[in-house]
């Protein structure tokens, strides 16, 4: 059974496996990905990594632009633009990009947009590497030659449907958007969710597409990674052939944005229209991706809600039976991260009751931190997940994405050793300090998403 490949999965933050790229205690050779990085004359960065496990090659391009770089009134634009990149270019017919790759046997074929970057990737049988480079170079160099308002209009409709799917008709979708916007008030560039608002999606014009392309989609603002079963010298020649002559432009400046601080607790009470059970969400601003505290937050979120023995699950689901599910996460982002806790209530349990319980448990963490055993288990879990991510050469969180991710945020594709060092430094005491400093009750957004009381309970069985 083939899953439908959507042309624009909206990756909210980095794919889980790679975001949790939290390697091993020992400097195991399996964890470092052998690679070579160089730069073309026009500024395009190239990362090559050979992996002969299977006769396939992953081609993966990161453009260093995301929803963070949108202008006011155009939320959702980076992602809408991503859709336009599949619509054809000067030498590639309209709307054949995906189908053409599909029929060659490509897998892991998609594009995703986050706040910090946009990526495009495909894994192809090794004999079709050149085809993938031809396709990717054409849209990098010649997208605007065939852009029409009609193409844009169709994709505006497609993306609005994507928003309806993921926001309007998704349980808690609208509620979560409200929470997000309260965390990042305007004019912060994270204010608009990645998918954007219906009004802003409607407002986009073909001129906007052209301007965005010219500003952000230059080779100097992109990194091409090729991972898999290929000949290095031949591939370097192919990269030069397809990408070397593309227009050169100065690397765009990254906007400077002052960090947000929450001055007081914000409480949102939302009448939930889709979900059937109440949900409590709490969210705090947290240090940016790759800081030490970002690793500390990862460990804490694991100790709180991963597994039956985790603190919140044990207390709320097993012992008190007040909650149906609990999820804590550190969403690691370039400008500022978000630490959140979501608790779905059992039928008949109020979100206020849940809040008292969560607060009591967080107080314990602020007072005593967590145990060395919990930290050790989290580390073992990350080791396994990190290795697991290295099985795929492409796709979400595969090798190419891992190299790209490190390169995007630190400039070093081989940052893995330094990344893992952060997790070695987490202690019960540093978790306690993190909770005291960042998870303060007076600096958070609390969302109560409560469905109307007449939500369907048990359906009637009509025999």
């Amino acid at each position, binding site marked *: 059974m*083939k899953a439908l490949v959507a042309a624009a999965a909206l990756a909210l933050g980095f794919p889980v496996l790679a975001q949790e790229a939290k390697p091993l205690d020992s400097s195991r050779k399996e964890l470092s990905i052998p690679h070579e990085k160089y730069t073309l004359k026009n500024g395009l960065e190239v990362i090559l990594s050979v992996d002969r496990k299977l006769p396939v090659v992953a081609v993966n391009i990161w453009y260093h632009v995301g929803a963070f770089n949108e202008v006011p009134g155009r939320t959702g634009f980076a992602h809408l633009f991503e859709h336009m990149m599949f619509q054809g270019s000067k030498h590639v*017919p309209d709307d054949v990009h995906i189908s053409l790759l599909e029929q060659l046997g490509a*897998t892991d074929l998609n594009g995703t947009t986050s706040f910090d970057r946009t990526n495009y990737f495909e894994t192809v049988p090794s*004999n079709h590497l050149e085809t993938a480079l031809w396709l990717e170079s054409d849209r990098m160099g010649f997208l605007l030659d*065939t852009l029409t308002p009609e193409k844009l209009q*169709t994709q505006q409709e497609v993306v609005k449907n994507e928003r309806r799917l993921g926001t309007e008709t998704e349980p808690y979708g609208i509620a979560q958007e409200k929470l997000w916007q309260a965390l990042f008030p305007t004019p912060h560039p994270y204010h608009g969710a990645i998918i954007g608002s219906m009004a802003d999606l409607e407002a986009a014009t073909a001129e906007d597409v052209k301007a965005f392309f010219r500003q952000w989609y230059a080779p100097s603002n992109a990194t091409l990674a090729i991972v898999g079963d290929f000949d290095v010298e031949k591939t370097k020649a192919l990269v030069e052939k397809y990408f070397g002559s593309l227009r050169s432009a100065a690397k765009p400046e990254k906007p400077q944005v002052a960090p947000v601080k929450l001055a007081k607790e914000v409480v949102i009470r939302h009448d939930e229209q889709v979900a059937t059970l109440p949900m409590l969400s709490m969210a705090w601003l947290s240090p940016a991706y790759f800081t030490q505290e970002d690793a500390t937050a990862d460990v804490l979120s694991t100790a709180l809600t991963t597994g039956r023995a985790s603190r919140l699950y044990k207390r709320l689901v097993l012992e008190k039976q007040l909650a149906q599910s609990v999820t804590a996460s550190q969403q690691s982002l370039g400008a500022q991260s978000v630490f959140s806790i979501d608790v779905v209530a059992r039928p008949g349990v109020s979100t206020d009751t849940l809040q008292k319980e969560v607060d009591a448990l967080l107080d314990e963490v602020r007072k005593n931190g967590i145990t060395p055993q919990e930290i050790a288990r989290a580390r073992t879990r990350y080791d396994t997940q990190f290795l697991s991510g290295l099985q795929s050469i492409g796709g979400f969180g595969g090798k190419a994405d891992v190299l790209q991710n490190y390169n995007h945020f630190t400039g070093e594709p081989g940052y893995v050793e330094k990344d893992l060092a952060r997790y070695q430094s987490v202690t019960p005491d540093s978790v306690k300090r993190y909770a005291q400093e960042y998870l303060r009750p007076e600096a958070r957004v609390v969302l109560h998403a409560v469905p109307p009381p007449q939500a369907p309970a048990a359906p009637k069985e009509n025999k």
Partner: protein
Amino acid sequence: MRRLFVSASLLALASCASTPVAAPPATPPAAEAPAPQDSESFRAKMPEPAKPPDLVLPTFEQAQLDNGLTVLVATRRQLPLVSVGIAFSAGSAQDPAGAAGTADIAYKMLLEGAGGKDTITLDNAFGDLGVSPSVGVTPDGAFLGVQVLTGNVQPALALLADVVRKPTFAPKDFERRKKQQLADIVRRLGSPGFLAQQAYLKAVFGEGHPYAHPTVGTPAEVSQLTLPTVQGFYRKHVGPKATALVVAGDLSKDQAVELAKKYFGDWKGTAVLPPAPPAPSVPPREQVRYVSKPGLEQTTVMVGRPGLAAGHPDEEALELATTVFGGFFGSRLNMNLREAKGYTYGAGASSDARLGVGPLTAQSAVRANVTGPAVTEFFRELADLRSRPITSQELESAREGLIRSFPGNFERVSGLGASAASLFYKRLPMDEFTRTVERLEKATPAEVQRVAEAYLDPAAMQLILVGDPDLIQTQVGPLHLGTLTKVDVAGAAGK
């Protein structure tokens, strides 16, 4: 590096001639910084592919212990990572009549305490190995697996053996699990997709068929479940003859068998493989069933009928026809509904060949105000398979795409493990994927067209909608696709 795979017979495939070649678009006058035309002219033609590599297919080895336990192994040596799991051959299709949800709760109970460890102690023991196991229950079977570093395989197997062989089934855990299950069903009722699926399975398989109810069960039936029923399911269906140990990754077959003997060699039990569910009838469509969700901004559309059981001679021909119709992004259905009309974020179709006859389904979530036009397009595309037969280009693209994507689809040990489990549920031989590829290669255009017309006949397709009732009345009523019938969330006909 060791070659891990037996490469399949080299496919004599012509280099891909399936690329649509369009006339080069006219260059608009405003092209920026045009490079001299001649230096970039090489881009006008799609590159010729190099010689295709040998097709590498996943290979599975099989062994059986004296007590009947099946051991399935797929060795992958590159990383110190192993997926170990237990495949149980009974699934929700084996739920006792009137007790939907039994299998799901029975398997979930295994992780609530075993071998003298309570829920928390057991979870922490797994946590020490870096995992939190969960069990996935399907109509045809269930899989309980973990992915661990090679060094943790033995302790992981020791825990899995306890979980499978010595579950506690404590009454207090059962009561809690049952409440969680009931709340989980309530939670799911908020999802339009879940509502559609419930109504769909009932419409396609008919009330009371083993495939007609959701795996999680229904509120009415789950609330009546008792611990003896659940333990009875376990005793009847879980035992060495009905179970497989699945090992994928950094272990050899010999190592896997050795470990299987150590942890499961003295396991006894009378459970046997369950029979396949009966084939459902395929009546013509008389109703259009809908679940009412007033004000819903997208209508969920599901169209389908009983398809095929695994191993049926038409399976690959139907896979090819379904791929052309709605399997790929570039399929007729998706290119029409998403890319030409902008009605949806995606529309697709798939054939789910199970141990018994599984569903053949097309689905989408469409903008509410184009519900009628979108449904019309679904049926137009189905009818078009007859009036616009599948072209050789469409067929060869689907064939090449399906065959050549095999290596990329088997990069992960978890995927290898899940595939091995699926072969076990469906009683398929271990070289099934090699045979699948052979059959995909052999399917003739005439066969694929015959199968497309036979199975994707619009008249036999049931139609289920979840959305705003007034809008459905106004837009779908006039299409004369059947009597509009409101169904409640459990899928039974409403009054």
